């Protein structure tokens, strides 16, 4: 006897697989179901990437158009999620390249080397702020970072993807994803500290 929970989960997995199979046949209901399932995650990813709600909506729609057009070439043995986010990634990067080429740079703020050289053990004001759950200023600082950093941070901490999954979405070797994640976190930490020191934190 299966527990109702297991049955529900099994049912959900089965119907998901059917949707992906029907997707290959260009079935509109299948695409709509997948769209419903991924709407918030995909929209959030786009918003983190392009920062403008209207542009995020536009790229959301373009992503599904691309999904519909290339559904025939989708291999059902691959993870649909990674395939979807890889499409979204390509569209977002194309858009950013067209609109603001400088935002793709991975330039590190000058404070980075100093922070990286020797860890500070002085009473950490930043730690206190973070402990107070004032995460709005973290979101603010992330929004000001280069797109490649914003992307790796949202994929890891909001989409909760593993390194291997991120590597597949970004089509990058694992080592580069590791380095990028490391640099993004160090950069964020240093940006927050600099803001704190100069009193620019709102």
């Amino acid at each position, binding site marked *: 006897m299966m527990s109702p929970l297991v049955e529900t989960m099994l049912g959900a997995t089965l119907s998901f697989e059917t949707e992906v199979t029907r997707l290959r046949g*260009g079935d*509109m209901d299948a*695409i*709509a179901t997948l*769209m*419903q399932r991924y*709407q*918030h995650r*995909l*929209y*959030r990813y786009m*918003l983190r990437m392009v920062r403008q*709600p209207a542009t995020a*909506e536009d790229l*959301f*729609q373009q992503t*599904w*158009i691309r999904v*519909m057009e290339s559904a025939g070439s989708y291999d059902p043995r691959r993870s649909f999620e990674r395939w979807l986010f890889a499409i979204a990634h390509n569209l977002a990067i194309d858009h950013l390249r067209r609109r603001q080429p400088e935002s793709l740079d991975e330039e590190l703020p000058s404070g980075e080397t100093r922070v*990286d050289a*020797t*860890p*500070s*053990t002085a009473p*950490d004001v*930043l*730690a206190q702020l*973070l*402990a107070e*759950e004032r*995460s*709005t200023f*973290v*979101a603010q600082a*992330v929004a000001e970072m280069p797109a490649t950093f914003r992307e790796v*941070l949202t994929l*890891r*901490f*909001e989409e909760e993807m*593993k*390194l291997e999954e991120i590597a597949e979405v970004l089509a990058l070797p694992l080592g580069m994803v*590791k*380095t990028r*994640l*490391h640099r993004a*976190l*160090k950069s*964020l*930490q240093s940006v*927050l500290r600099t803001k704190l020191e100069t009193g620019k934190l709102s």
Partner: protein
Amino acid sequence: MNGFGMDDLDMKAHSEIRELLTLAAAGVLDAAEQRQVEEHLVQCEACRAEFQSLGRLTGALQKQIMPQAPRSLVQQTRRILELRLQAQRDRRRSYFFLGALAVLGWTFTLLNWPLLRLMDGPLIRAFNLSGTQLTWIWTTYILAAWLGTALAAAILGKRFQQEGRTL
């Protein structure tokens, strides 16, 4: 240097652990790397503090307010997809129709062949042509008719596509 009296060996381990420390805070290390970090943290206060600071940062990143997709976004997108799908189907139907029209035209010209041959005798007598010359004339006529049909179909197809109209 930093007030903790670390010797050279410690400093080396220290710099090697740098990237691992961030990745540990991000929760993406494998078991061996995780153990390496933990072993270093036991003996290095500086890294311990850094690890804690990074942990708070990643914690804050996970706790960010999640923006939701606008309510109408899925419906809007679905409508766009349906329109595109419909246009695609219409285009395919138009091409099929034009293709069928062209084949019909070609078959019709081909069926004319025996009729044309019936006119061989009078024409040879009237214009003093040889049989081979006449065969060439008929073949050219049929080929020109075929080409004309194909051209008409292509032009029509192009116009339908531009106007986004269906047949």
